[in-house]
């Protein structure tokens, strides 16, 4: 356990001491604040505090972009720099290194998501301090029972899964081809055209298992329930199976290859 923590710390050391990571984090914060200000300016009258917090969770998209970049770099860079040679000749072993690398990206993004969540809570509280105490959902009859807080938490949890999926794709490509450009480029391509392809494909037969039918998970935690083809459990199932496959491919490649 202690050794695992030290390995994760190593990954942070390598992430946070890079100027580009710091610039990305700074840019991310600036973007979030900017979007937030814009949002408040044009939509000053939310129905409630928690709804405002929920609707701002879309800003996690920027964290997702950063996750794709971090995940795309974390393996490819080591090969690019040649540091992989030192990394793989220590007792930690390849499987554990791989696990730690994906884990480190997810933990880092989770941290950023928490920062976003807290910022959103605090800033909204400044605008409407009275709304915090009202835990009720604006349209109770549609959502059945459940509190607004629960809804927001669920929404953020699903955002985290979305991030994990795209990070997973980028991570797999990074492990496969050891190229940052290819990993991030391809993942952004999938991000753009995946959902569109899903629409074209339709939801009949095997098409219903197509990953990009299920990546828009935030639809399952909406204020106003919309009809969806799949249930949350189905979508989560498909997503998790895909993630497991991506990770498996990355694992086979990373642990079996000869490193020259």
């Amino acid at each position: 356990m202690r050794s695992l923590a030290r390995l994760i710390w190593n990954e942070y050391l390598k992430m946070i001491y890079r100027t580009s990571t710091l610039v990305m984090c700074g840019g991310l914060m600036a973007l979030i604040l900017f979007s937030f200000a814009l949002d408040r300016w044009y939509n000053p009258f939310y129905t409630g505090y928690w709804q405002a917090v929920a609707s701002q969770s879309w800003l996690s998209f920027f964290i997702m972009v950063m996750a794709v970049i971090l995940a795309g770099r974390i393996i490819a860079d080591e090969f690019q720099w040649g540091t992989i040679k030192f990394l793989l000749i220590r007792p930690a072993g390849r499987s554990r290194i791989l696990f730690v690398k994906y884990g480190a990206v997810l933990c880092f993004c989770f941290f950023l998501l928490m920062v976003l969540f807290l910022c959103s809570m605090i800033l909204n509280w400044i605008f409407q301090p009275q709304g915090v105490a009202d835990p009720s959902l604006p349209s109770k009859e549609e959502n059945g029972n459940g509190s607004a807080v629960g809804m927001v938490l669920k929404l953020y949890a699903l955002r985290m899964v979305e991030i994990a999926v795209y990070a997973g794709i980028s991570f797999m490509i990074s492990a496969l081809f050891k190229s940052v450009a290819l990993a991030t480029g391809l993942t952004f391509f999938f991000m753009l055209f995946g959902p569109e392809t899903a629409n074209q494909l339709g939801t009949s037969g095997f098409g219903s298992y197509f990953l990009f039918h299920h990546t828009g998970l935030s639809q399952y935690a909406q204020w106003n329930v919309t009809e969806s083809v799949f249930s949350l459990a189905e979508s989560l199932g498909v997503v998790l199976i895909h993630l497991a496959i991506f990770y498996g491919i990355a694992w086979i490649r990373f642990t079996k290859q000869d490193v020259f």
Partner: protein
Amino acid sequence: MEAGLHFRNVSKRIRSKPLVENVSFSVYPGEVFGLLGPNGAGKTTLIRLAVGLITMSQGEIIIDGHSLRESFSQAIQRVGAIVETPAFYDFLTGYQNLVHYANLSDRVERERIDELVERLNMGNYIYSKVGTYSLGMKQRLGIAQAMLHRPSVLILDEPTNGLDPLGIKELRETIRQLAERENVAVLVSSHLLAEMEMMCDRVGIINKGRMVSIRKLADGDVQNRWFEVDKADQAYTVIRTKYPHAVLAVTEKTLKVQADPQMTALINEALVQAGIAVYGITAESRSLEDLFMEDTENEISGQINLE
């Protein structure tokens, strides 16, 4: 337990192209073993195999009694290594790089890092970013990295590459010290013959992926000596009764004998007592370079003959 590093009939092929063929050798604790061979001979390939960066197609590698293939963690735990040029994180300082590598091993204290920084004279620049280092500075950092966890097997690929004369001398002393005082088994590779002569106890000569020969480097010890006598055939019988395998060649008036100085004196005494006149004893002085050329050429002509 079999301490040290042992290669047993190791082969590595890539798409049926052999990089290394049927190589066997051992590096024992307290010994410095040199891998010597021209560019492309397969030295780095052997080292990559020894640290598990590439998998062997055949054979076995044993490190301190653990099979590298079957129990990688236990085997590799005992090894410190540099493979080709050491690579670091340019945006971290030398010290941060060492902390990073220390975290990859169990039980490396900060004091150990400080100790190595002092021992390798890196105090002046250890807190600067590695991006600003020269090749020699990186090489030192690489050696520190390899020694962090007090390995019992140390593997260094062309360790003097990029070091200045003082650095080379210090490295040589460090390596000898590790072998002699701390009983480390050291494997170094180089194509610099003079370097190897000064630093190694034994060398394995590699050519075209094969171990051509393994030589013990005579530190005035066992050497071929020519005895010039009046009756060579008689002398041969005398020596053979004492040392059955020492005589390598006999001509009419000379004998070629493999012997250390002590043995040489005893043989001389025995010959004189047997009434044989000894006109002279000459030690064959052949540099490693001669051996190297001889062995690699034999190998090449041997291959030509086969075809």
